[in-house]
């Protein structure tokens, strides 16, 4: 039943953008209490699904998101510790089980294709219904820069709820009113100064009634939220003890190496296992089908990872190259360019009569921009460890989607979901690659060959590069019109590319997906600029290549297109690029402030100093909204030998609403710049006859330390609740650099990766 209902509702979301009749009649559901009580150790008390307190006062916070570098261990613990008034030095964390209260609600609501300025009852209703729906049938997911925003209320409520119970217990013991008690640093304090530690109170507090509506602090009373707080997960990451997915070490671990079809989506037609079986330590050889958007092949299971690899190389396999045997990226890119030129696409945003405005314009400019398919290239190569025991199974994996991981493993093993336990370990980078479960289904199918023995399936770096689910390529066409006074009067933009969400619905849920996919046009249609007359559309092009979410998703390329063409418009109008942007933000003080903060930090308008080797430098600016936050960046560039593009300094300003952990926000902005620069300067995969040409870090380069700029960050004092932080630093850097290169050389680069003629 649950599956049917989930399929129905998700299908509806995919097709219509979410109107679910009837679900609104369900009672509002809380996000505090799990269906099963959290497991506790001796003397420890679980107050709700989010926090346990031990007799010695140690506070263990439930981590329902995956730590993949973005700092959720620290920021989420801060949310709960704030309302609990916990002793920060006693706060620990533990990865959550799978439960509905941990489902990600915010990212689905934010995924609705609605312009952020839209304010009406229908939109509010759809968002409310979607939130309720996702509480029941959504999925646990870390992504979309949503973790802090998603858990902003539940985790503070959980802390406040536990605090009220601790206070009630202390008050009862002292025979005074709870209202007369205060809490501080892990203790309840009586008016006369007596103190009781949370550890000593925990057992009695657990007997108190669950508070119905625990009061939350007003932000002015925050002590920890808003303070730059060092990461809690540093110790294990500097002494080698942190356990990533690849470090799973269940007793008797075996290792699998897979010879995968070199053609994406292909499979092994037949194979000769004999040479592989002759290698020392080999336990089994088994063919695996392409699963969940992945590629098929033949796996060798051995007692040692190197012997498994050596044996897999010995396999003699005849391939069935499948549907992508004729797929190449160059003609596919041309198809996108044709679509961007010839098709009208779905208009995500329209205002005024753009065609009339263009026809009446005194001056028109147009341009075409391109961005390639991109691999995720997380440092931890794809791997997954599975123990199959006939009627149950255990999975150890670094994943952004534990529930989908469980479902994928269960299906591959022919087990019900409930028979599979998933242990989420640290992620050696996610960036969207670990939202996919192709490798988890594959690892489960492989482990089925050796029941009772855990098997770690591990890909090589080459496989990680060549069997990714890539960031979709995209082509965008722009036309702008200006009146006789050089004022912008028309903005017309049609992009074309593959849509990710329909593919994901099919891969993850077996659903036919359709309808407008916000991620195709996000970054193009949902920006703050006040266009005079505009039409912003996207033409979804179906190609057999599997594509996936890549850090900042549609924004990753749409920001480059839009901010590049905005810069072109500024130059066409003969206006400074900063001033031109300011003129389009008269009703948007937040974005205007962010833009001006970055410009001020960079001393925009003053001559930029020479590079250390004396080379001339120039600056470019870009502004982009994503995941609820607004980010502006100024990049300072010069050219090295052979026209090598060098980025010396980047000034970055952000308004991310309430800044929970400024230290973590700075980390994400600095890292986002480097991540975005890797793509801007080096990124892209080429596919020929279904086979990815790049393989490892020599031909799929990511930025090195000696190419890395100095990044200076300004965090504006934002209001209200927290917005996204993990991704918004990525999108503006490519256009900021391209715009700087135009200022330096006069060459307008409209294609990624950036390369000067």
């Amino acid at each position: 039943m649950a599956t049917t209902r989930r399929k129905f509702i998700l299908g509806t979301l995919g097709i219509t953008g979410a109107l679910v009749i009837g679900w609104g009649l369900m009672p509002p559901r809380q996000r505090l209490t799990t269906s099963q009580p959290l497991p506790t150790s001796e003397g420890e008390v679980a107050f709700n699904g989010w926090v346990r307190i031990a007799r010695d006062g140690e506070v263990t916070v439930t981590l329902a998101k995956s730590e993949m570098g973005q700092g959720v261990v620290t920021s989420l613990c801060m949310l709960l510790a704030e309302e609990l008034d916990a002793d920060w030095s006693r706060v620990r964390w533990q990865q959550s089980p799978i439960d509905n209260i941990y489902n990600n609600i915010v990212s689905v609501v934010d995924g609705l294709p609605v312009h952020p300025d839209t304010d009406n009852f229908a939109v509010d209703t759809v968002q409310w219904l979607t939130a309720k729906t996702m509480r029941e049938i959504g999925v646990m997911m870390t992504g979309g820069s949503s973790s802090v925003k998603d858990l902003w209320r539940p985790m503070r409520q959980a802390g406040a709820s536990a605090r009220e119970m601790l206070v009630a217990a202390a008050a009862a013991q002292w025979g005074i009113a709870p209202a007369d008690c205060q809490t501080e640093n892990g203790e309840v304090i009586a008016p006369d100064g007596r103190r009781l530690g949370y550890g000593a109170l925990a057992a009695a507090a657990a007997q108190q009634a669950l508070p119905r509506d625990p009061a939350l602090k007003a932000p002015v009373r925050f002590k920890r939220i808003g303070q730059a707080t060092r990461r809690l997960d540093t110790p294990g990451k500097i002494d080698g003890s942190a356990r990533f997915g690849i470090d799973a070490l269940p007793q008797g671990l075996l290792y699998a190496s897979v010879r995968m079809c070199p053609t994406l989506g292909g499979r092994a037609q037949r194979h000769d296992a004999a040479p592989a079986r002759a290698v020392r330590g080999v336990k089994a050889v088994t063919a695996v089908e392409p699963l969940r958007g992945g590629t098929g092949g033949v796996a060798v299971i051995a007692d040692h990872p190197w012997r498994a690899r050596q044996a897999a190389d010995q396999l003699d396999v005849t391939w069935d190259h499948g549907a992508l045997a004729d797929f190449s990226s160059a003609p596919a890119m041309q198809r996108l360019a044709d679509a961007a030129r010839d098709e009208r696409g779905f208009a995500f945003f329209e205002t005024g009569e753009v065609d009339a405005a263009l026809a009446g314009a005194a001056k028109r400019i147009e341009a075409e921009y391109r961005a390639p398919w991109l691999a995720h290239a997380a440092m931890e190569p794809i791997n997954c460890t599975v123990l199959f025991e006939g009627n149950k199974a255990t999975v150890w994996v670094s994943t952004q989607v534990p529930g989908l991981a469980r479902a994928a493993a269960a299906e591959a093993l022919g087990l019900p979901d409930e028979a599979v336990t998933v242990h989420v370990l640290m992620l050696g980078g996610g960036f969207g690659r670990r939202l996919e479960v192709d490798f988890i289904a594959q690892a489960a199918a492989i482990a089925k060959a050796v029941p009772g023995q855990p098997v770690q399936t591990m890909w090589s770096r080459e496989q990680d590069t060549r069997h990714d689910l890539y960031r979709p390529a995209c082509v965008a066409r722009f036309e702008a019109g200006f009146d006789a006074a050089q004022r912008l009067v028309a903005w017309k933009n049609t992009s074309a590319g593959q849509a990710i969400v329909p593919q994901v619905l099919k891969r993850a849920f077996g659903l036919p997906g359709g309808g407008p996919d916000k991620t195709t046009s996000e970054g193009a249609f949902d920006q703050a600029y006040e266009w005079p007359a505009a039409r912003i559309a996207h033409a979804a092009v179906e190609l057999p290549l599997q594509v996936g979410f890549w850090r900042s998703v549609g924004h990753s390329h749409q920001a480059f297109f839009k901010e590049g063409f905005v810069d072109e418009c500024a130059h066409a109008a003969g206006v400074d690029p900063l001033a031109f942007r300011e003129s389009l933000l008269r009703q948007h003080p937040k974005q205007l402030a962010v833009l001006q903060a970055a410009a001020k930090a960079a001393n925009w308008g003053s001559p930029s100093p020479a590079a250390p080797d004396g080379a001339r430098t120039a600056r470019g600016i870009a502004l982009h909204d994503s995941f609820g936050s607004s980010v502006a960046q100024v990049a300072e560039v010069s050219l090295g030998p052979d026209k090598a593009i060098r980025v010396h300094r980047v000034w970055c300003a952000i308004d991310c609403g309430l800044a929970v952990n400024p230290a973590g926000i700075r980390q994400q902005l600095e890292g986002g710049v480097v991540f975005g620069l890797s793509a801007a300067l080096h990124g892209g995969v080429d596919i020929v006859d279904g086979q990815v040409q790049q393989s490892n870090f020599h031909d799929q380069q990511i930025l090195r330390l000696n190419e890395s700029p100095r990044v200076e960050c300004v965090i504006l004092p934002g209001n209200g609740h927290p917005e996204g932080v993990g991704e918004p630093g990525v999108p503006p850097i490519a256009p900021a650099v391209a715009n700087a290169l135009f200022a330096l050389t006069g060459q307008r680069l409209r294609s990624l990766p950036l390369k000067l003629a």
Partner: protein
Amino acid sequence: MTTTLKVNGRDVTVDADPDTPLLWVLRADLQLTGTKFGCGMSLCGACTVHANGAAIRSCTTLLKDVAGQDITTIEGVQGPEIAALRAAWTTVDVVQCGYCQSGQLMSACALLKANPRPDADAIRAAMSGNLCRCGTYQRIEEAIALAATPR
């Protein structure tokens, strides 16, 4: 065939093909998982360990080539340099996902042992072989400079 070497001060005998990369001996045979697999081609530095005190890439160093040598991994590295680096890494809040950081620290430690007061160029030269996908480079430079500051 067995090979004997010293790992983190302890003599160990490994029964593996002498052509096995040291990385897999450390991770699978010795269960020292702090040393990470990243590329298998000495391109990323995630697998950096010390052999007789010098930083090497364990993913392309064969077992037979380190027979009898003194191997140190992130789990066993000791001394004033790594202590100063760990303190600086914590102060500067360097890590993000952390996957590359064992290798970063082993490279930085070898640098400080060879050159206790590296300037910015020396740090860039020594550390540019270690990739970090999260982009912690700026803080790595800052933390090494801090660790190298006399106190």
